[in-house]
């Protein structure tokens, strides 16, 4: 179980690191006369959560 949890944390670290790189890129280019207009089309951030159920005949019988 310990091993299992460690894997989970390293995955989350990866996610956080990925976001940090994104933030860095956005920030680095911003002083260079970049046109990041928040709320405009230049940058868009979307969060999605999807629940998907696969079932065989009856939705109660999901996998």
């Amino acid at each position: 179980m310990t091993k299992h949890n460690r894997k989970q944390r390293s995955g989350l670290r990866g996610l956080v690191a990925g976001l940090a790189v994104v933030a860095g890129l956005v920030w680095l280019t911003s002083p260079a006369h970049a046109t990041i207009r928040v709320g405009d089309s230049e940058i868009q951030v979307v969060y999605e959560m999807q629940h998907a159920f696969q079932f065989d005949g009856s939705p109660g019988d999901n996998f």
Partner: protein
Amino acid sequence: MQWRNELRVEYEYQDLVSTEGGLFGKNIKIPGVRRADFSFMYRGRFDPVYEVRDKYDDMYSHRIKQFKSFTFPENGFREMNLDVDFGDVMGHRLSMKLGKQQIVWGESDLFRSIDIANPLRLDQNQAVGEAFEDFRSPIWAVKFLYDIGNVGTLLSNVGLEFFYTPRWRSLVQHLVLEGGWGGLRYDDPNYIGDVEDYFDSPTSPGTLTTKGVPWGPYHDYARSRHPWSVFRVGRNLANMAPDSGCNADVPCTDDAAGRNTNFLYRIGGGRHTHHIRGTKWANSMVGVRMMGKAFDNFDFTLNYMYKRVDPYAVFDLPSFFGVDHDDGLGTVDQYGRRLGSFSNTLLGSPGGFFAHDPSNPNNMLNFRRALDRCFEENRASFFSGVDMLGYSQDGNPDNDRAATACFEVAHSYPWTNVFGFTVTYNDFDYTGAVFRLEQSWSTNEGRNWGGSNYGGRSQAHFDAKLQHAREVYLARLDDNPEYAAAVDTYAAENGVDRHGAVFGAPGVDPLITGPHSDGEGHPCAPGVNVCPGKKINGARIKQGSSVWRSMIGFDLIQSIQSFPGMAWTRGLPGGIGDQATFYTFQALTTYQNDNRPSGVNAFTNAPRDRHHRFNQLYTFGLSGFYFRGKLEPLFAVAYSVNSKHPLILAQSYWHDFLIRNLDIFAGTVMYMGGRNDTDGTGLHLWADRDLFWIRLQYYLL
């Protein structure tokens, strides 16, 4: 079930280089570049269901690295592109897109005919339900567009597009295939098979069996599957890759006693396997297309691509069956089929053949050696008296199995030329519809030839390849003058040629001088002069087929109330009756030009017989924006003719649901086919699993 959390950041830096200011608006001019934009899209996905649901803990042991990719299927730059406008180059405008991108060609929806440059994330979705732009996996490529404009008086908007990538990726790059790869014990690179995992079967004493196969091929089909698994290795021959061979004299059904040899497919990871990695010439894909407009309302494209095709499996049956002994070709039965018998290569190699015999003091040592050969060396081996899939460990004696064949499996990605064209016709004057046509011809897509137990052309092909291997061997005979002299003497004594002396002839035994090797470093069994290695054996059963794909369809935009008898819909709320509704129809046809029956139909898109070479799928959909654009429903039906498989899709967006930045998206897909009908559409792979999803989409920025 899946619980997917996704964060997406789309970013665009316009005018990285601009005509007015140069690089970063700093007057740094870059020669030849008129304008450049930079953009990327980051996408991270996290699915905690694999952490919170005990079922998956049991299914996927934690030491398997794929488990992590289920929880975090994506985390990185999905797209990253530099768009460069070079301005006028030799009289016309040239532009380029360099980066990780989607190359979307063709006019069809849901049909891989010309839209084949990008693979699909099959481990994140079923066949339908997700927008294709989210479904495709972008690849690193460079694409040029040369905008020519008018040519003569008939053609306008003419352009030439060219792309190249050294990073082609196959459609099945992310495929969840239970019992093949993707999170199963046997795919664990650390698993080499433990002798201690096996015990005497309670129902078939004298047979070793095991409990430790987490994907349980003997369990109920549905219960042992990953949410997005495409198919699995199991006992139902119709819709799974078969986990056993049929004995000729018993019924070939699920639980018939006597269907007793397990098949274990050794699809190894790493080099020379199904994984396609890296940036290299061997992963090249190149495409060129010309587009334009003719006679004002015909849009056309001419397409050409040179690429590798999606993989098909090569089951190395010749490493098992006896085609390299007797007269070299084995015995033929009354139907002209080659009979299967174990090859000398298998029988004579250490660990190649293990027969469980508790009275033998070296029994467990031999077992260990055979397990190593199967799991570590990925080479063919046969276990008599061993049930590696655990059928014999339960209380049911009817499903017991007494042997296991460990198959070498290779994958092949032959090159193909894809020629295609598309035409769309805007029929403004009469129907108001847009007619679409797309045709493609792929010259070579991989198929298996049956190695044994097939007659006719399959056998002829197979024999010809063996004959070739022998000729190569004879041509090299003189490299060993001592052996060549012995062969010549023996040939003269018996009145045969060298071929007869080495391989035998009627009444003449082959002259055996050994030991010989298969040319790939493995010794032949004692008493065998030629034992073709993996490569030659592979060539013996590989074969390609050209495939024609066709789409004819139309799109129509019209309000529902404008149809005869539908005027009453005007009174429906949200403008359902009088807002524009979009109707689309497609007839999709696939024709396999030269296909062979094979035991791996489910995998290779192979029809079972000549009749099924034609594969037809019809789709019809309608969609629209109602309630001031807030409600965006889509209803679609599809029907696959060969497998008699109807499909229903119903989904809808509700934009700005409750609050301004929130969209809700829900839908369902019903796969209504009988699960035993295999055809080229692949819909049967989901026939036992319908889908319902609900998605909340929040625009943070």
